[in-house]
């Protein structure tokens, strides 16, 4: 089933994004007696019916274990799983499917790299370089392995617009840095990192770069070969897919040299008590029965994104973001937090003398869902001297009316606190 564009079009016309909305059952409901306005896709996006149907089709027709049986269902399950891997490989333009590891999500992907790639290389003379903008899941795994090995975690600064200061970050790279780990897009502020410059600079020192792409994949076209990142992590549930599935992309030669992360079934070729032979890529990193239905759903989500067209999505969301920013600026007392030159799908803000939690409750009461608090990025909040912000984030299914309702909802917040 194609996304609900008019039939003549292969890909969507921007004006037709309104039609897409009816593909998303969760979006089409009333919350607190108002039609839902969902502006929390940066936390988790909603799934189109096509994804839900594919998961259900897999569960009701093809389910079995993968790579294990001689029987038909096992074959079908394996096919679903591996087709999804192929789909993901093409979606980000990886060289081949050996570079696509299924994980449970971004967090799991980052932990895999921390333990399997970094930890064996660390000692007290070594460093891991991150930025001040990171999500906790791109901070804490590094802290843990630094504590265990005596290595240091160093943090590149951000400016008042909420952007990584690229030159300073680059200046911190030397041959004792084992890995640079940075987000592609900040979940708290929507700032886009200047990855090309950073990756080039890191490679000049032969330092690999891990990119946390959790917030990027559903908003812009990712060409991993052009980007030349060494590792790239993302989650299914932030790209119209289900929870519990994610991807670690890694360059093949790096993955080849890494020891397995977890041991178990599927990741071995031969097990003897005198020694075990590990399986080839990508299975070496996929111990145990994987999340097959999650992979099926993620594959369907990618089909959906492809049919809508990543370029169209980018244009659509950019129009909405600009409208949202313009409208927010007309409200007295609103301060925008994060004004990056290049910003995608997210705007954080505060309202003078009103705590973000109160903003969130009053909006929710009007059927409007936003995120409030620290957004799992406490160092970002600390940088701005704030306990938290309110954050509205956009996706493919949002429209201008959502932005209008959101802005009107904020008037109500201000009225109550007047």
């Amino acid at each position, binding site marked *: 089933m194609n996304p609900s564009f008019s039939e003549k079009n292969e890909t969507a016309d921007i004006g037709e994004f309104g039609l897409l909305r009816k593909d998303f059952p969760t979006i089409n409901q009333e919350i607190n*007696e108002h039609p839902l306005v969902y502006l929390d896709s940066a936390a988790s996006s909603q799934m189109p019916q096509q994804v839900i149907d594919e998961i259900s089709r897999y569960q009701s027709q093809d389910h079995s274990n993968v790579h294990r049986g001689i029987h038909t269902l096992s074959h079908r399950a394996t096919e679903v799983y591996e087709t999804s891997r192929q789909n993901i490989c093409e979606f980000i333009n990886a060289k081949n499917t050996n570079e696509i590891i299924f994980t449970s999500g971004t967090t799991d992907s980052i932990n895999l790299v921390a333990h399997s790639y970094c930890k064996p290389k660390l000692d007290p003379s070594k460093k891991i370089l991150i930025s001040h903008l990171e999500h906790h899941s791109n901070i804490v795994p590094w802290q843990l392995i630094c504590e265990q090995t005596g290595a240091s975690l160093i943090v590149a600064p951000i400016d008042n617009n909420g952007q990584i200061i690229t030159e300073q970050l680059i200046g911190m790279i030397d041959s004792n840095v084992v890995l640079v780990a940075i987000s592609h897009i900040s979940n708290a502020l929507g700032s886009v990192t200047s990855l090309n410059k950073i990756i080039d600079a890191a490679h000049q020192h032969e330092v690999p770069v891990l990119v946390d792409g959790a917030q990027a994949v559903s908003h812009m076209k990712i060409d991993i070969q052009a980007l030349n990142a060494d590792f790239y992590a993302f989650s299914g549930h932030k790209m119209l897919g289900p929870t519990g599935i994610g991807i670690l992309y890694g360059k093949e030669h790096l993955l080849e040299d890494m020891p397995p992360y977890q041991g178990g079934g599927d990741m071995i070729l031969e097990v003897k008590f005198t020694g075990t032979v590990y399986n080839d890529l990508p299975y070496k990193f996929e111990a145990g029965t994987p999340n097959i239905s999650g992979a099926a759903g993620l594959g369907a989500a990618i089909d959906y994104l492809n049919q809508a067209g990543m370029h169209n999505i980018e244009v659509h969301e950019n129009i909405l973001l600009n409208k949202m920013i313009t409208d927010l600026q007309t409200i007295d007392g609103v301060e925008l937090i994060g004004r990056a030159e290049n910003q995608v799908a997210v705007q954080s803000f505060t309202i003078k003398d009103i*705590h973000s*939690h109160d903003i969130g*409750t009053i909006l929710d*009461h009007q059927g409007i869902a936003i995120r409030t*608090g*620290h957004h799992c990025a406490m160092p970002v909040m600390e940088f701005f001297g704030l*306990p938290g912000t309110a954050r509205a984030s956009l996706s493919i299914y949002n429209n201008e009316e959502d932005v209008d309702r959101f802005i009107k909802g904020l008037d109500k917040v201000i009225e109550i606190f007047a």
Partner: protein
Amino acid sequence: MKRDNSENKSLKELYRQLIIHHAKNPLNFGKLSNNPIRAEGINPLCGDKIRIYLNINEADTIEGLTFEGTGCAISIASASLMTTTLRNMKKYQANQYALNLISNLNEPKSQEAGQLMMDSQEINALEGVKDFPSRIKCATLSWQTFISALNNKKITTTEK
């Protein structure tokens, strides 16, 4: 437009004028001198942080009670109301009062109109959170922190 009325009603119950007033002008906000007992309360879900300062005299009476911190309107107003309510109570009374309030706020709304949750009009202004389950912890944070201060527990959290 009936729908709009009922919707406004529970929001207005949550953000009563008294609550907004205390949130904007909290009483007893600041530190205490004389080496007070301190305790910190954290709601990790929203990042609210409240610090309580407490002086108890030889007769076991709460002589000084102040707070500091950041939080939403509900948690700040609740902390402000707590300081005025518990001050001058005996230690055991204050402890019992805080326990009662926490358990009352966690109980469903009374069906009988006019039945008061606690014996104080002001404290009953907190009752609006009952329609907002995610906000009950905002209202109980400072009271819970007060109890841990009495028990010499330095740090407490709404998530166990």
